[in-house]
Every structure is written in structure tokens, then in C-alpha cells.
């Protein structure tokens, strides 16, 4: 096995892809904005749906314990 290389892409367990590092650095200025909005929106919807079910369906069916 070759000794440690300075670049991880030369790691024999990682086959290099064809991504241009400069382009990657450029998009990393915006990422993860889109993901944050998408995931954040999904979680917000989830919490809202959860609370609505709790308040409008579960609680009206009566106290139980």
C-alpha cells in the first residue's frame, strides 16, 4: 500500500471523480442555503402537521390515562 499522500484524492480507497475543484469552491459559497431552506421547510411542515393532529384530532377525542 502506498504511504500517505498529501492529497486525499490519491487515497487508494477513494477513486477520484471528475469534479473541478475551482467549480466546487465556487458553489460552496452558496451551499447549503438551498438544502437549509428545503430541509427547514420540511421540518417546519412536519412540526406543524404534528401539532395540528395533536390539537385537532387527538385532544378532542377525550382525556385518557
Amino acid at each position, binding site marked *: 500500500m502506498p504511504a500517505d499522500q*498529501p492529497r486525499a484524492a490519491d487515497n487508494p480507497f477513494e477513486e477520484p471523480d471528475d469534479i473541478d475543484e475551482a467549480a466546487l469552491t465556487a458553489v460552496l459559497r452558496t451551499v447549503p442555503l438551498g438544502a437549509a431552506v428545503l430541509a427547514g421547510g420540511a421540518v417546519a411542515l412536519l412540526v406543524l402537521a404534528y401539532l395540528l393532529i395533536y390539537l385537532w384530532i387527538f385532544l378532542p377525542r377525550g382525556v385518557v390515562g
Partner: protein
Amino acid sequence: MSDRSHEIPERWILHTELLWAFGVGVLVAATISIIVFTALTRNINPPSNVERVDPKTLHLSGEFAEQNLGTVVAADGTVTARIIATQFMFAPHCIAVPQRRPVTLRFASPDVIHGILITGTNVNTMVVPGYVAQVHTEFTRTGELLMPCHEYCGLGHSEMWANVQVLPAAEVKPDRDGRVTCAQH
């Protein structure tokens, strides 16, 4: 060269991940707090009265002997319904309960695992042989509800259900022993 230019995105990436985790953590903590608060203030819990009973001698004597089954209004006004769940029927098959009064439902099984729910309500419990399953509730609406066995208990499971009649207060007429039975249609 490569070390430094890789460090900065990595630090930024971990920073965004932590920010995300923190934000969601706050949201989840808030949601759980609401649940816990309403659970405590309105006394909503899963049915967790841990009370043992021997399934092999249920029918012989004591609380779940046949003559004690069904709905009873005690001298102090408390309403308790005792039901046996067995392959493949409930005894009694029709359970009468009053509307808008606290009711305690107590179930036991002499054989295998059963379970019940009452449609339109939050009444739901497993009935595990060896234990008395107990649910406290108040029925808000009058009418005829379905109480099926909801846990697989053998080949007759699909045919195992009971009816729950929620009676308006005026129609709740306990007999001499405090027993309330279903109105005949």
C-alpha cells in the same frame, strides 16, 4: 496549499451542520415540551396501571368472576366496567357507559394477548394475560361505538368485537346492584 484550502470549507461545513442541529434541536425540544405539559396538566398518559392477576384463575372468583362483569355504578358514584377478553369474544358483548362521567375500564385475559380500541375515542390498550389493563376516560358523545380486539389472537381474531353504548345521563338507570346494561333496540 491543499491543507489550508481544505480546512476552511470543512470548518464552515461543520459550522452549518451544528447550526442546523441546534435549530432543529430547539424545535424538537419545544414540541416535546408542549406534549409533556399538556400530558401533565390534563393527565393524559398511556395505560400504565401495573396490576398483576393470574390468568389461570380469573373466572373462578374475585373481580373478574362472571357475575361481576359489565358496568357497575358504585355507592360513591364511580363507574367501573369490567370486561374479559378471551378467544374469540368479549364478556359482556355490549358495554354500557354514561356520557360525560369518569369511567374506569378494566380488562383481563385468561388466555392469549388481546387488545382493544374504542372507535372515535382515545381508549386503547393491550390486554396481556397476567395483568389487568386499566383505562380511565370520559366519553364525550352518545352513540354506539365499536370495540374490536385489535391484536392477533388466533384464527377467530376477525370475529372478536364488542359494542360500547354511550348513554345520555338520563338513560343511565343502575339496577339494585348498581349494574348498567345496554339498552335493547
